[in-house]
């Protein structure tokens, strides 16, 4: 046991001491925030006004109504141009040129068909801005509806009232009652849980692989296996590297907790007004969720670390490792992709099934727990399956590992791996 401890200690200390650990500990949250928050933040922030021309090929009063609506959104500066149906093509060509030379962001064409069948056309350089296009569509729909109703003689006051916006507030209800958490916050919590688990299992699994490969490449493995049993070495390595993962995760959790707890002071330091501070709503991470995350991190990490250890033990060169790790990576990536589906329907069939499969459950189940009420029986079954699989896979991996670490040259195929596993 003392020897295993020496291996654990070495793996842990050497990693925590490295620059890589410092950088990833600091940059991890930065990366997480940038992939979850930044895109939406950027989309709302780009405050540029789009200069467009509204080509009216005989839409009647719709043109003026639409112009007012677009300008009112604050995102568009609109020049209204009337064009007879016969001049339509010429106007469109010259406008296309102006868009090409960037004198104009785009132009929107409406015609009598717009009122009749809802057809309109926009050509521009900014068509990929979902937010702006969404606004344009809303403005168009509202103007067309208002125009249609007004023409049928509906009172403008009634039309205006009918157009008033709807704001659906979504709040999550759990067994404990209403949480006051919005649907959005729950979504992001689930998203974050899935992503963190994926990242941490992947990063530390690959760390185990690299560590095995390093010992093989430097041939220090010969000295080690003449002193320790291969299983002791693998065990120490997996625990040591996993300890680093837990340590890093601990740092992130604590920092996150402190930042949420002291958010008033922190945001105050950046002169953010108090009413905006309290408008921020944060998910409450319950003790249950935290322990579920912890349990599945351990199970998932052990499972994948054992697989990655086998990959490291069966290859000789870095380039081979890149290839050989693909199947294992695929399992993880698949789990992450399914977790997005599970976010939308945490109690759906796909989510329930994948939260039972031991290779995807470490990511899917915590996501489900974060976003819905998972029956205790399902949780227990999933944990039991995962734990059994981990024991089996670790045992098998250790048997392949002990042979693989001393083999150089040609990569073994599955048949050979199986023979190694059964060999005495």
């Amino acid at each position, binding site marked *: 046991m*003392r*020897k295993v401890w*020496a*291996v654990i200690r*070495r793996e842990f*200390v*050497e990693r925590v001491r*490295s620059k890589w650990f410092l950088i990833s500990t600091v940059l991890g949250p930065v990366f997480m925030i940038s992939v979850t928050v930044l895109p939406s933040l950027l989309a709302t922030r780009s405050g540029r006004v789009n200069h467009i021309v509204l080509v009216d090929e005989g839409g009647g009063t719709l043109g003026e109504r639409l112009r007012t609506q677009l300008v009112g959104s604050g995102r568009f500066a609109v020049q209204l141009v009337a064009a007879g149906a016969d001049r339509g093509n010429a106007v469109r060509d010259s406008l296309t040129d102006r868009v090409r030379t960037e004198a104009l962001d785009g132009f929107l064409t409406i015609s009598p068909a717009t009122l009749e069948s809802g057809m309109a056309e926009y050509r521009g350089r900014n068509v990929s801005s979902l937010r702006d296009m969404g606004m344009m569509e809303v403005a168009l729909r509202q103007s067309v509806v208002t125009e249609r109703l007004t023409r049928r003689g509906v009172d403008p006051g009634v039309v205006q009232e009918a157009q008033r916006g709807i704001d659906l507030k979504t709040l999550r209800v759990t067994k404990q009652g209403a949480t006051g958490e919005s649907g959005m916050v729950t979504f992001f919590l689930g998203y974050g849980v899935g992503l963190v688990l994926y990242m941490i299992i992947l990063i530390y699994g690959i760390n185990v692989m690299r560590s095995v490969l*390093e*010992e093989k*490449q*430097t*041939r*220090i*493995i*010969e*000295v*080690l*296996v*003449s*002193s*320790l*049993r291969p299983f002791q070495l693998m065990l120490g390595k997996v625990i040591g590297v996993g300890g680093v993962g837990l340590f890093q995760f601990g740092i992130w959790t604590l920092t996150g907790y402190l930042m949420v707890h002291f958010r008033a002071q922190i945001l105050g330091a950046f002169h953010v007004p108090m009413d905006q501070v309290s408008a921020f709503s944060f998910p409450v991470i319950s003790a249950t969720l935290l322990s579920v995350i912890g349990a599945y991190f351990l199970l998932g990490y052990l499972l994948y670390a054992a697989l990655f250890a086998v990959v490291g033990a069966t290859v000789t060169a870095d380039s081979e490792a890149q290839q050989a790790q693909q199947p294992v990576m695929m399992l993880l990536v698949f789990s992450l992709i399914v977790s997005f589906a599970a976010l939308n329907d945490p109690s759906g069939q796909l989510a329930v099934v994948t939260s039972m499969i031991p290779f995807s459950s470490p990511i899917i189940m915590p996501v489900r727990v974060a976003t819905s009420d998972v029956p205790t029986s399902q949780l227990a079954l999933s944990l039991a399956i995962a734990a059994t699989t981990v024991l089996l896979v670790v045992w098998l991996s250790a048997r392949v590992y002990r042979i693989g670490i*001393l083999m150089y040259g040609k990569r073994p195929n599955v048949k050979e791996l199986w023979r190694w596993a059964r060999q005495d």
Partner: protein
Amino acid sequence: MTPDTVVAIDRIAKRFSGHVAVADLSLRVPRGAVYGLLGPNGAGKTTTIRMIMNITIPDEGTIELFGDRMGGRHHSARIGYLPEERGLYRKMRVRDMLVFLAEAKGVSRAVGGAKADEWLRRLDLAEWGPRKVEELSKGMQQKVQFIGTMLHEPELLILDEPFSGLDPINQQVLRDIVVHLSRAGKTIIFSTHQMDVAEKICDHVCIIARGQKVLDGALAEVKRVHGGTHVAVAFEDAGAGAGAMAAVSDLVAAADDSGMSAELKLKDGVDPQTVLERLMGTHARLRRFERIEPSLNRIFLDKAGPEAVAPAAEVAHA
């Protein structure tokens, strides 16, 4: 097996996908011996050592260490092993790594640290302790690895090509340590193809060629039994030496000619005095003419060289 035998190998064989690495090899290493495992490249030295260390398992035969068959890993704490393929953790600090290697042998951190410091000082590496392994020169790394095999004070040291790749100064340093350890009663097995080194420090040798033992025994006995009349000659310049060698060629059965000096095995019945007279007749100026025991190199060439038809001769154990 006598209690004074540390390693007893009995008829082991190892095959790798069709080719025979070691065949029917038996040897005994007495306690306190400096045992040289000699042979050309690819003879099976490393494979034999790996089987002793439990890294590979022999297909046939048995290996006893310290009187039992528990294997090298079981006796790990009593054995120091330097593999042929040198390797260290490149990113680790030298001292930390040595302490780790000691811990892997079951030594406590405190004792391991003290031992590491002591040996680093002894090998003039003290200032490198806190540096990373990758900053060290190759020779220094080799010395560090050598230290790593000795920290737990093993009774048996198994060194695979310990001196290869070292400059003469560092070779001497390590050789001194081997001699020192031997005097302290440790048993040392090492493999090499450098016969001059083996001749200086071994008291027992085993020559392996093509996976088979060619001969083994105490060095003095091996030399005595080898037979033949051998003389060493040395010249003042290589040009004249060439002429002199040509003049005696009909008297010589085999010559190990290095230009400035040569070791000659005389044909049966040739008197060394005749050779000396012939040499005096040439214009070569002699620096040395001496009747000698055959050198290990000569024996090695006779037994394992290209011209040897490899009749496995076994010398009685001394």
